[in-house]
């Protein structure tokens, strides 16, 4: 009986106009989006190798090993960003240590002008916005529509429990939503395989698989919410309005408003304040260093000795300035991280935001990804410092061939999973809560 009810629900969804419309829409969007994203990735890859060549070539101009400290490091584009672009386009592609020991991006001012006017249509957008609307449209009349047309009464006249009727609706409805999703995924896999510039490893396939799981969880949570609203409304005209407005609020408003709410709740110092603090450190340290030089130089007459003393004090002062500036940045990073955390926490009211955070974490394009490059760069600099300490300047500049290379390590599958587990868990939680709500409401509902 249960199986035949599931089949009825599934057929009910699949045979209608909306299913055809949904499938067509999703396929068109995936076909429009993924290839362009793939080509964009190919372009990024070319940019990366051009950057590598330029930055390796700079070594040829260095006069002594010490200068290697200012060598730029490059980050290869993230292959999985073709699915969830996230912050990929805002993350630095190349970093270089400035005079003050701070990482600075190596890039001009030209940015893609329309990039920030319109969101990028990636898979996260297609599933997160468009497919979730499909799930809502599938769900809004699942209960209220049947009540209106009288078939619900008919079904309940059979010896079936209400719980199993609802469960059948849930399973059948979710299956109806997952079918177009499956279609999309098959297409995506084919496109990923066919595109030549993309070399896909087991990690990427695992991400593609996990993204599918995440998408199913997200869409089923939206479907379940629709079921809940449908069971709670008497008429499907009411449930559709409620559900569409809920969808708009959850997918289009709350996630976007969250960072602004967070910045009002947890303000961080602006760039000007940080700049002022750093200048203050600089001025104080330099003044102290000058005073100490003046003290030590009294009585020293040898010019070379004076110069050596001066240089030693100034170098120590610069190192101290670098350390203190690092501390200022660190304290800024801490307050910014707490602002980001608040923003994330608020946005998690919306299943879409959970899905987005989980997807970007899996694709390594989330908020923590841009810190990754600078972290790895400081590791690289530790290696460089050791190398500089043991390397002698030789007249033939043989050392240029031996400069350690930087290789960017993308996060492993374990790291990606642990970064996304909270949001995936929340999606499961949303499913459970909405299903429970739908169950309670449906058990108490009047059939007529």
């Amino acid at each position, binding site marked *: 009986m249960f199986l035949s009810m599931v089949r009825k629900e599934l057929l009910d969804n699949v045979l209608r*106009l909306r299913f055809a*419309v949904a499938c067509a*829409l999703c396929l068109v969007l995936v076909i*429009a989006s993924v290839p*362009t994203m793939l*080509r964009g990735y190919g372009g990024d890859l070319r*940019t990366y190798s051009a950057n590598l060549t330029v930055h390796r070539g*700079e070594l040829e*101009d260095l006069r002594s090993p010490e200068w290697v400290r200012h060598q730029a490091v490059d980050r290869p584009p993230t292959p999985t960003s073709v699915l969830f672009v*996230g*912050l990929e386009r*805002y993350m630095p592609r190349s970093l270089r240590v400035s005079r003050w020991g701070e990482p*600075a*991006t190596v*890039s*001009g*001012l*030209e*940015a*893609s*002008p*329309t*990039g*920030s*006017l*319109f*969101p990028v*249509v990636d898979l996260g*957008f297609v599933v997160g916005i468009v497919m979730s609307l499909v799930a809502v*449209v599938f769900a809004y009349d699942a209960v209220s529509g049947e009540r209106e047309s009288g078939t619900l009464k008919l079904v309940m006249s059979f010896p079936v429990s209400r719980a199993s009727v609802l469960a059948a609706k849930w399973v059948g409805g979710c299956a109806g939503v997952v079918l177009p999703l499956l279609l999309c995924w098959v297409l995506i896999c084919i496109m990923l395989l066919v595109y030549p510039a993309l070399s896909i490893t087991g990690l990427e396939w695992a991400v593609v698989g996990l993204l599918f799981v995440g998408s199913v969880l997200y869409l089923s949570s939206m479907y379940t919410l629709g079921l809940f609203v449908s069971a709670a409304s008497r*008429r499907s*005209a*009411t449930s559709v*309005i409620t559900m*569409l*407005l809920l969808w*708009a609020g959850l997918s289009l*408003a709350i996630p*976007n*408003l969250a*960072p*602004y*709410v*967070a*910045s*009002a709740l947890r*303000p961080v*110092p*602006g*760039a*000007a304040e940080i700049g*002022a603090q750093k200048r203050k450190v600089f001025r104080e340290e330099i003044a102290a260093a000058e005073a100490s030089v003046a003290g030590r130089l009294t009585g020293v007459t040898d010019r070379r000795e004076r110069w050596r003393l001066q240089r030693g004090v100034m170098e120590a002062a610069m190192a101290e300035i670098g350390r203190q500036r690092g501390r200022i940045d660190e304290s*800024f990073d801490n307050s*910014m991280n707490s*602002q*980001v955390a608040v*923003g994330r926490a608020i946005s998690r009211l919306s299943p879409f935001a959970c899905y*987005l955070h989980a997807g*970007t974490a899996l694709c390594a394009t989330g*908020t923590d990804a841009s810190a990754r490059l600078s972290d790895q760069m400081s590791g690289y600099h530790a290696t460089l410092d050791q190398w500089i300490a043991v390397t002698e300047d030789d007249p033939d500049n043989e050392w240029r061939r031996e400069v350690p290379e930087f290789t960017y390590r993308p996060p492993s599958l374990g790291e990606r999973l642990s970064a996304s587990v909270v949001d995936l868990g929340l999606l499961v939680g949303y499913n459970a809560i909405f299903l429970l709500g739908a169950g309670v409401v449906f058990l108490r509902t009047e059939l007529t």
Partner: protein
Amino acid sequence: MQPSPVPASSWPPACSSLPVSGGGPSVLWTIVKKEMLGHVLSYRFLVTTLLCFLLTLASVGLLLLDYRSEKENYDASVALHERDLASAESMTDLEVSGIVVERRPPPLSSLAKGMDVSAPRSVEFAYRSTPRAVGSRYRNPLLFLLPTPDLVYVVEVIVSLLAVLFMFDAVSGEKERGTLKLLLSNSVPRDLVLIGKYVGGYVTLLLPLSASLAAVLLLLHLAPWVDMTRELWLRTGWIVVVSLLYVSLFFALGILISALTKRASTSLIVSLFVWVILVIVMPNIAPLLAAQLSPSPSPEMVSAEQSSIRRDGWRSMRGLRDSGMSESERDEREAEMREQVARQQADVEAFARSRARRNVALARALGKVSPAAGLVYSATDLARTGVAAHFAFLEATSAMEEDVDRYLRGLRDGIDDLARSDPDLDADAAFAEVFDPEEAPRPRVVGLPLADTLRETNMDVLLLAVYNVLFLMGAYVAFMRYDAT
């Protein structure tokens, strides 16, 4: 969930007062009144009003706070740079720490954030290097993850959805309930019924919408940190007009679809589908397509190209040193080469910029198919946060780069002259003599006069109007042929 506050039996309100014959304003008024009553008493009106108010006020309020912190940061930064400039003691101070220019946050960014969200906040002009954006690490990365929820976004996405939801069953729903037959059995011309539906629905949505817009204007007026000039009010007013035109288009579209379908559930699916295509898909696909059709080099490509030009220049200058030329001859050649490097770098930049302009023009042309893109382009242009402002900023940066270069060269020449006339003078003292912080180059104010913006946007606005007319005409034809039974 509460069921509709109006019992089904009394919906829609009776229209027994229709005159038996003729047409004219009194009939129209009766239909408008009936439509309005039907909407106002409905559940969706309640939810819509709430959502409209909440979202517009939350969005503008939060963005005004955001603007305040941006502005405070701007003022503090400008003061800081002025202090730095005034305390410069040597040429190295100027050349190494560079001259930093802040980007003034546009006041109307609280209505349409546009490209301001990712635009560089400050640009550093250092000696012999291309201008560089600084301080971008002090931004919340979450802001880049999703579109900014500004007023234009709320109108573009949420209010248009509300309009579609208001109208999807205007004709097909009445047909299903049988009231359409009843209504048309009176001797009312169909065109009046259609106009009555359109006006009644639009005016009903206008009530909460204009109330929230009025609240927004009040917020703008009251926020002490926004200096609203007459021009800014004009721009704001024009943004409101464009938004209302945009919303009206979705009403016409809703009626058109409703008059093309037989059942309300079908018209809902079709309306939502069309809404997704027009609002969610097309405007966002257009830039992707434009990037494919007319690719422009990425910023990293440009800087890689520029640094390899610079390196080649250095190499050949180093080659000069070993060539055994006399010093004056070498200086001359070096200056020549430096100029050549600068020219080549500028060429690369100009090329990239012209490609970017072409790319934007194409994206804009492709986006014309969708009214949502028209709204975004024209509203951001009006708020000075759009494409025009972006390119104006880039132009201003290039101009500033030249100014800084010229200024630093002038200072250097002045110091050299002093040193020649008085060999005992040390460099820092000469610098103190020549340097006057007041004379240092300041960023030129980017004008973008209202007339230019209007010229830029009138095509988009015209298209919005054309869409309105087209959809209304389509609705008229479809309704004339509609089978009411």
